[in-house]
């Protein structure tokens, strides 16, 4: 099946048209044929009546007085008749018949019979059989018809009928074919014209490029059958444009976040190398550069993880893991930073809490939440990791300040962060986006809320949490 709508529609119209025209032609053909045969029958009836009139009953006995009729005498395509008296004795024959007989066709008085026959000379023909009382010559007025019956059969070739019919049918089919061709061509052109708006829309879509996706295609002048398609397309374009814009902003943000620590790294190294210094000064510069490189590395790792999450290239390997030890592990890198700001950390997770999950992925989640808490909790504050209850896996609670209300709904979006300028690579709005992304592949959910007492709680829900099982009898899971 062709994929061209124009060809399909044209083909459909043409097939229907062909069927209609063929039916029409066949019906006309049959009607014509019937009419011509009826005309022939009328002539045959006339001839038969004329022949029957030649036979008469006479006081001297029945006699047949042949009056010459040209159709029974011509040499080419002659007609034939035969007459019987009382159904048995041959009364008369047309000169053309010679010694042949015609079939009597079983006609009854008052009901002439017609039939297609083969003429004595082999031509196809049609015959009428008439059976009627003999005419009484010079009979007294009021006398009834003769008691004797004459049977007349007249046969004539049907080639004239068939020739006429053939001519008419030739014309009929020629006209039908002509009409068909004209209608098909017209259908093709009309369909093409009707599909004009589709082509126009296609051309507009073809001209679209990625920079103007936010400009919708005009729908005002479109036919109502195409308008919904274009409207849906416009909605799709709008979504695409938004996604491109997000992508562009993300790229710009990523480049910003990577450039800032790189700028610091480069300046630190260039300034250090600009003049001769004591070894201690070089060591300090190298320490700074290492810290910057580490920070950049963490950022790049986070970005890569985010990209893998986007590309669905992250595999999950689930096993049982102790939650408390995992949290301790995750906190270690932030101990120095927290101590510098006099933050207290408490790991309140029960020693026997276990989780069936991918520990490497859960580590990313917890590390980012702790990193966030270590960076944003006000100096002299506290941070705690707690077991949750019910469906809650764990909570990271810090002493605030509270998350601004306008930030809360988009806290886990990429590059949304407390202070638009807070830069330096790690707390640049990637961490919490990563938390949400990793949680999603672990079947977890991350949420944040401000508590009434001014503390901030990050909550991870959804994992199967259990207790370490010293013996099977003690095992229980919530």
């Amino acid at each position: 099946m062709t994929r061209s709508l124009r060809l399909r529609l044209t083909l459909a119209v043409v097939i229907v048209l062909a069927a209609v025209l063929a039916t029409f032609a066949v019906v006309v053909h049959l009607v014509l044929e019937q009419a011509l045969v009826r005309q022939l029958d009328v002539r045959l009836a006339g001839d038969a009546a004329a022949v029957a009139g030649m036979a008469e009953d006479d006081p001297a006995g029945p006699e047949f007085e042949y009056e010459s009729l040209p159709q029974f005498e011509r040499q080419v395509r002659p007609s034939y008749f035969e007459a019987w008296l009382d159904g048995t004795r041959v009364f008369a024959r047309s000169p053309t018949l010679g010694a042949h007989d015609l079939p009597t066709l079983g006609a009854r008085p008052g009901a002439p019979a017609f039939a297609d026959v083969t003429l004595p000379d082999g031509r196809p023909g049609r015959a009428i059989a008439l059976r009627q009382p003999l005419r009484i010559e010079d009979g007294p007025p009021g006398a009834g018809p003769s008691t004797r019956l004459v049977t007349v059969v007249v046969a004539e070739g049907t080639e004239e009928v068939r020739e006429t019919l053939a001519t008419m049918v030739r014309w009929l089919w020629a006209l039908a074919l002509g009409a068909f061709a004209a209608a098909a061509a017209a259908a093709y052109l009309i369909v093409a014209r009707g599909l004009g708006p589709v082509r126009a829309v296609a051309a507009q879509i073809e001209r679209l490029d990625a920079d103007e996706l936010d400009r919708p295609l005009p729908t005002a002048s479109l036919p109502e059958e195409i308008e919904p398609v274009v409207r849906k397309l416009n909605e799709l374009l709008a979504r695409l444009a938004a996604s491109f814009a997000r992508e562009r902003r993300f790229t710009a943000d990523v480049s910003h976040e990577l450039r800032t620590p790189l700028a610091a790294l480069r300046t630190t190294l260039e300034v250090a190398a600009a003049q001769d210094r004591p070894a201690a000064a070089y060591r300090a510069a190298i320490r700074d550069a290492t810290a910057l490189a580490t920070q950049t590395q963490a950022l790049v790792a986070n970005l890569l993880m985010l990209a893998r999450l986007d590309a669905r290239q992250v595999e999950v390997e689930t096993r049982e893991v102790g939650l408390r030890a995992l949290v301790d592990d995750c906190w270690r890198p932030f101990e120095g930073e927290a101590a510098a700001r006099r933050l207290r950390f408490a790991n309140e997770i029960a020693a026997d809490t276990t989780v069936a999950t991918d520990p490497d992925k859960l580590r990313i989640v917890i590390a980012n939440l702790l990193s966030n808490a270590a960076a944003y909790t006000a100096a002299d504050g506290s941070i705690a990791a707690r077991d949750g209850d019910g469906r809650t896996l764990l909570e990271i609670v810090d002493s605030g300040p509270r998350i601004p209300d306008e930030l809360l709904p988009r806290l886990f979006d990429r590059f949304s962060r407390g202070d638009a300028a807070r830069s330096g690579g790690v707390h640049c709005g990637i961490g919490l986006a990563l938390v949400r992304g990793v949680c999603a592949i672990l079947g977890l959910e991350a949420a944040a809320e401000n508590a009434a007492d001014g503390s901030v709680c990050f909550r991870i829900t959804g994992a199967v949490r259990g207790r370490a099982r010293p013996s099977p009898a003690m095992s229980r899971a919530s």
Partner: protein
Amino acid sequence: MRVLLIEDFEPLARSLAQGLREAGYAVDASADGEEGLALAESSPYDAILLDLMIPKLDGLTVLRRLRARGAATAVIVMTARDQVPDRVAGLDLGADDYLPKPFAFEELLARLRAVIRRRYQAPSNLVRVADLEIDAAGRAVQRGGRAIALSALEYALLEYLAMRRGQVVTRAEIREHVYDFAAEPASNVVDVYVGYLRKKIDDGHPVRLIHTHRGLGYSLGEAP
């Protein structure tokens, strides 16, 4: 030359301040927009290095407010945002130059020299006063074809006097624009350094170039 550095990423701010000081600039640093703007309005800086993404008040707002109050200080915008619209916005708001991060520190110094030169209407880094030549790019000084070795502070003082050659420069101006005098407690520190400089520049030359204007200050030039 006194420079204000407004940059919130601490490792970068620290290295920049160190590098600029070692290049002979007096550097004040601020990590947010509000403090930076207050500093910029309180002292006559020769140049401001401004990061755009800074807390409290973003860099473009700082720039706009600064220009709205008629401050003519040269401003170099440094930012990790390097898209053309960002650059255009910065320059349109009155930035003198735009430096995308990361940059070569040498380039920052060169651009800084260029905007300061423009501020003092010097056509090139090479300033000539009679037979005295001061090359700001190489921080080299020679008189009568003979190189003169100067300490960082002496050079900074001479460069400032050279930028304003032919004008009388007050002691207060010298304190404001030349590195670390502000931090020195002794009130006559400017006179002491001018004395050192005079010894190195003028001794053994028939024409004196550094002149004292009693009760006013100092000037550099052939005529007092």
